[in-house]
């Protein structure tokens, strides 16, 4: 499915204007300005508890901003916008799930429609989506029997089913091994180029997507920086952001951030681990933990 003409214009698909989110007396982030262009790949970085997942909830219309506005294709966001695809934090399906691989993708197509009878065109569309995400070989296997990498491909296929203009991915690589991390991030990268949708990719580890990311939004202690990875992921920029000395080390094409202070700038932030190396940490338990 090629990107249609309306998407090749330069109007941003997503705009944040002075966006501020505060819970009680704790500011997650404030004054965030960000435009995501069609086809652009933006990574959202930051330690646990910096409000990465909350940002996605705001864009999904599930959480109101304290101040500022968030626009999707020029309109205020609302819940259930079909133009926004969503790949949630990975959660493995359990045994009581009456779904095969192709059925999970199919829910992305018509899961919200009332009734029980599938439409006639569904089968062909699902077949094509399965082929696009490389899941044809296990299309008929129960979801509960698939590996994490296989399930993540299906999640992406499910999100693509509605032909989104913006894809939100929340730690889509968490708990995947390195080869699956590469496969999944390359899949997202290829699809956004072919279909021309913007990507907002929440991650605590930039390295698997370092070569693909156009810009990063780095959240820390209620403040933020935006720019290309080379602009933002520098010792002096992050030291200023954190307000204390931080070293960004580049080794063998990877980026490691050392010495981020633990929760000093985020009062009442109990989720914030003693922060160091959060950009190269593969521990799945590190997933964002802002309880709402």
């Amino acid at each position, binding site marked *: 499915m090629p990107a249609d003409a309306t998407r090749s214009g330069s109007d941003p698909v997503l705009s944040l204007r002075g966006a501020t989110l505060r819970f009680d007396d704790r500011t997650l982030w404030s004054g965030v300005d960000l435009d995501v262009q069609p086809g652009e790949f933006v990574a959202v970085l930051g330690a646990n508890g910096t409000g990465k997942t909350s940002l996605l909830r705001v864009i*999904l219309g*599930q959480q109101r901003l304290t101040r500022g506005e968030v626009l999707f294709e020029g309109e205020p966001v609302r*819940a*259930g*916008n*079909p133009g*926004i695809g*969503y790949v*949630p*934090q990975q*959660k*493995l*399906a*359990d*045994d*009581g*799930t*009456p*779904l*095969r691989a192709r*059925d*999970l993708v199919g*829910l*992305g197509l*018509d*899961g*919200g*429609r*009332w*009734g*029980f009878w599938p439409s006639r065109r569904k089968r062909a569309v699902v077949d094509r989506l399965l082929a696009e995400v490389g899941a044809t070989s296990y299309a008929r*296997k*129960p*979801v*509960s*029997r*698939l*590996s*994490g990498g*296989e*399930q993540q491909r299906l*999640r992406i296929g*499910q*999100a693509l089913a*509605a032909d989104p203009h913006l894809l*939100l991915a929340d730690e889509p690589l968490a*708990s*995947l091994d390195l080869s699956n991390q590469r496969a999944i991030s390359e899949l997202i990268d290829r699809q956004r180029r072919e279909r021309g949708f913007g990507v907002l990719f929440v991650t605590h580890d930039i390295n698997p997507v370092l070569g693909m990311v156009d810009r990063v939004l780095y959240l820390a202690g209620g403040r933020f920086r935006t720019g290309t990875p080379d602009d933002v992921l520098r010792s002096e920029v992050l030291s200023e952001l954190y307000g204390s000395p931080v070293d960004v080390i580049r080794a063998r094409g990877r980026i490691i951030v050392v010495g981020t202070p633990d929760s000093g700038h985020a009062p009442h932030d109990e989720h914030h681990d003693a922060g160091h190396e959060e950009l190269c940490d593969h521990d*799945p338990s590190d997933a964002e933990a802002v309880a709402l």
Partner: protein
Amino acid sequence: MIAAVDWSQVFNFADYGELIVLLRNSIIAGALLGLVGGLIGVFVMSRDMAFAVHGISELSFAGASAGLLLGVGVVQGSIIGSLIAALLIGLLGARARERNSITAVLMPFGLGLGILCLALYPGRSANKFGLLTGQIVAIDDPQIGWLIAVTLVVLIGLAVVWRPLMFASVDADVATARGVPVRGLSIVFMLLLGLSVAVSVQIVGALLVLSILVTPAAAALKVSASPLVVPLLSVAFGVTAMVGGILLALGSSVPISPYVTTISFAIYAACRAIAAVRTRRSSAPRPAPVREAQEGALA
């Protein structure tokens, strides 16, 4: 000759044809319950609510007992009890852990309330035991009418919400993001579940509701993961257990419940055996998929 059990009481098929005609209504109600139980069981399983079903059935029993005592009617009372319990569990127990504790708190309360009402009831005691262990043969015509009407409501309700309810049950996060009214669907589901439980209590009894609302779907899920095959199998299992149980019970003085629960359990055991054989077969020549599955489980 010492006979501990008089088997002629368990199986005695004299005058069978006449009995079937006499109990045609009961067989119809049983078949409808098998249908409803098989369908709603698929969602009970995918929403992990088996324990909540048991809790609702105890409050349904309390409602039925109160209905008997106050003269409101057993079926009406059990529907009211079921709906209250289902709503309480649905509203207060959004998370699995909360739901389990609320169910555990409600269950003994309901049972105690039911026992109190039955103890105060001055009438015949045959009905009392029936509410716990099944009494379809004792159901009269107006009651059958109620049961059939409630069953139809559940069937129509399920047909309307089927796909979004499935989406919300297996994948609540994405369903919410896509604008599916997950919270509203959960309440609708609880109401439909409450009605199904109320019907089941009348037929198999409050203590044995799980055998018709959970076991058939659990068995079906052992042998398939297709969203079409699982409900069809589950319904086939549920109807087989219900109608088979009623037909066997006709020829005996034993209530229908043990027949229904035994058939239901046997089907589940058979499905487990089939699943075990399949896993062994598929793992022997092709080790790769199993390794993936294990990785998935560990991840």
